[in-house]
């Protein structure tokens, strides 16, 4: 069968991400927020090469676990979860987190004044553009050419394998 998958909505708002983590049991007492990225630490206390701005230390993740991190990118926060922790904190957990994030994001938008909404709308437009460029870049790297069309507010990107 041909695939149909909905990928996670990009998480761009730090406050909403922290609120979503709190909903899943990682409240402010268990989450570190760094202005400059901090190194993640493995279960043996080893310093990892990965860095993140939002960090859940391994003692809160589980015995023999590693730190979980979130680092900001142009297409939203990227989760860093070790292979060991994937069974508990992989796709299903990230989907749950993303669902909670979307709820907090919607609630936040309702509270905002017009000026702030305008700013968020601009931020959203930048995010869509970043997502669009990310698909183009990934496609190019993997040998596809991209045919782009717009249907209403949806951008459609069809990837065709290059044959040269």
């Amino acid at each position: 069968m041909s695939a149909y998958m909905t990928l996670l909505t990009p998480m761009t708002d730090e406050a909403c991400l922290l609120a979503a983590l709190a909903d899943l049991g990682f409240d402010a007492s268990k989450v570190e927020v760094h202005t400059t990225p901090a190194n993640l630490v493995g279960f043996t206390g080893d310093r990892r090469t990965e860095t993140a701005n939002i960090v859940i230390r391994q003692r809160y993740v589980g015995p023999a676990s590693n730190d979980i991190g979130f680092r900001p990118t142009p297409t939203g926060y990227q989760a860093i979860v070790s292979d060991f922790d994937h069974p508990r904190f992989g796709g299903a957990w990230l989907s749950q987190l993303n669902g909670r994030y979307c709820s907090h994001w919607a609630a936040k938008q309702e509270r905002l004044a017009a000026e702030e909404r305008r700013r968020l709308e601009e931020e959203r437009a930048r995010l869509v553009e970043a997502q669009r460029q990310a698909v183009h870049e990934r496609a190019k790297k993997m040998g596809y050419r991209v045919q782009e069309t717009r249907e209403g507010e949806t951008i459609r990107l069809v990837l065709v394998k290059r044959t040269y």
Partner: protein
Amino acid sequence: MRVNLARTLPRSAANGPGERFVVWVQGCPLACPGCWNADTWAFKRRDLRSVDELTANILATEGIEGVTFTGGEPFTQARALAEVARRVKVAGLSVFVFTGYELEELTSSGQRALLAEADVLVAGRYVEKERATGLAWRGSANQSVHFITDRYGPGDMIGIGEVEFHLARDGSLAVTGFPEAGLVAYDGDE
């Protein structure tokens, strides 16, 4: 007659030749390990539409050359889909069907009725260890393409869209077609 759907996509260029209305049915008894669409396996009520309604949805979509049935397993709802197919063919549209069954397994009268309306059938289980990319319309190398009518032929398998992204205004992405894993890695899975 009604069809139990998982979802529809009014326009896609990665699910058969040309621009197509795509119908993912709900329910599949085969449950191939590694299937992209495990959410469509359960035989539970999801989006019930009458044959009249689904046909009208398809015919109201401008600029498509056909309809594609995928899933889920279309041949578990063969009679209703055969009727949809019959009606859209009268309007000049083509019919493309994905199935996890082999062609010779489609023996019931309902299944033969749907097969009789198909222009192209892509058949066979998804076999994870034979997963391959770059095969037009197929996810694993054991699957086969059958041109049931002469409307399409092997020439239509060249230079086609293999993967398609739909980027919504909130930045969310939906993916359809036959994506390589690297194209759709979740954050943190890369």
